[in-house]
């Protein structure tokens, strides 16, 4: 009777072992096989991913477009700034020409004085400074690029006038006696070269017995025109 149980337990052992082993084997293999619902979920996730990627691409495209627009705007802005800068420079220049602001800079000073009294000379006009001498000097200076010119400290503007009034000359109605100090702001080298050119203004003035003096200045300060 006992032997029967032993044999039966052996049968049970083998059966249990096989069932358990088979069960375990199936369970291990299960993750490899994908069930229907898992497939569905997989596809769902995949679709979601694709949609997400498409969305990303669209957004990136949008970003690129926006950046391009930004670049354009920046370029435009810099152009505008350049324009403003130029405008500011221009207005500064025009203010200088108009005499609205104080001007400071390098320049030259031309002094014209009446010649020494010469008893041999009959006509006193031959050694006096006339307004056309002053004109010559001023025109030469303007032509040579002077930005601001003043006579005895009075700034000249675009509508200044100079007239001869007996022993003095009037600049915008203000009488100025000799000697005339003409200050001009500009490149000193260019201005002095233009004045000193052979056969130019200086030679003419010296020929007409006028005391002529030219100085180059590193710092000239011209006050704005008052009441203009």
């Amino acid at each position, binding site marked *: 009777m006992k032997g*029967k*149980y*032993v*044999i*039966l*337990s*052996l*049968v*049970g*052992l*083998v*059966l*249990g*072992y*096989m*069932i*358990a*082993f*088979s*069960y*375990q*084997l*199936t369970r*291990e*293999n299960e993750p490899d096989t994908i069930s229907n619902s898992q497939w569905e979920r997989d596809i769902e996730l995949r679709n979601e991913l694709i949609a997400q990627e498409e969305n990303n691409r669209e957004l990136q495209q949008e970003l690129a477009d926006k950046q391009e627009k930004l670049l354009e705007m920046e370029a435009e802005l810099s152009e505008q700034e350049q324009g403003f800068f130029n405008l500011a420079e221009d207005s500064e220049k025009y203010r200088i020409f108009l005499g609205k602001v104080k001007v400071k800079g390098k320049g030259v000073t031309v002094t014209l004085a009446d010649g020494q009294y010469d008893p041999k000379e009959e006509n006193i006009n031959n050694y006096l400074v006339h307004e056309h001498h002053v004109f010559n000097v001023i025109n030469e200076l303007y032509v040579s690029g002077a930005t601001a010119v003043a006579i005895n400290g009075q700034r000249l503007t675009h509508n200044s006038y100079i007239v001869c009034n007996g022993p003095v000359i009037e600049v915008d109605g203000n009488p100025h006696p000799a000697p005339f100090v003409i200050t001009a702001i500009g490149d000193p080298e260019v201005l002095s070269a233009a004045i000193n050119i052979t056969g130019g203004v200086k030679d003419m003035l010296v020929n007409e017995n006028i005391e002529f003096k030219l100085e180059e200045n590193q710092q000239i300060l011209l006050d704005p025109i008052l009441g203009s």
Partner: protein
Amino acid sequence: MWLPVLGLVIGILLGLMSNFSIPDEYSNYLSIAVLAALDTLFGGIRAHLQNIYDEKVFVSGFFFNIILAASLAFLGVHLGVDLYLAAVFAFGVRLFQNIAVIRRILIAKNSTK
């Protein structure tokens, strides 16, 4: 009396704890073997209830059926014919028949009491 049950439990534990794995294509043989074992087991229970139980027949049938089913599946794989289906069919039908017979005998026993 509890010795066969203890053997079954020990077998299940051993099977669950054994960690070595066999290739995928051999798992079919194991399933067939399990089916054969179950079939023989129920056949034995039926024979016992019908009082025609023979231990030698049962034990030899148990192991012989397992080996035969596995080798049949093996042969089928090598011949390119799904012979394990024949084993599954045969053992399945017999399993159902055995269980049906056991059920009837038990019902008959219960109703006579």
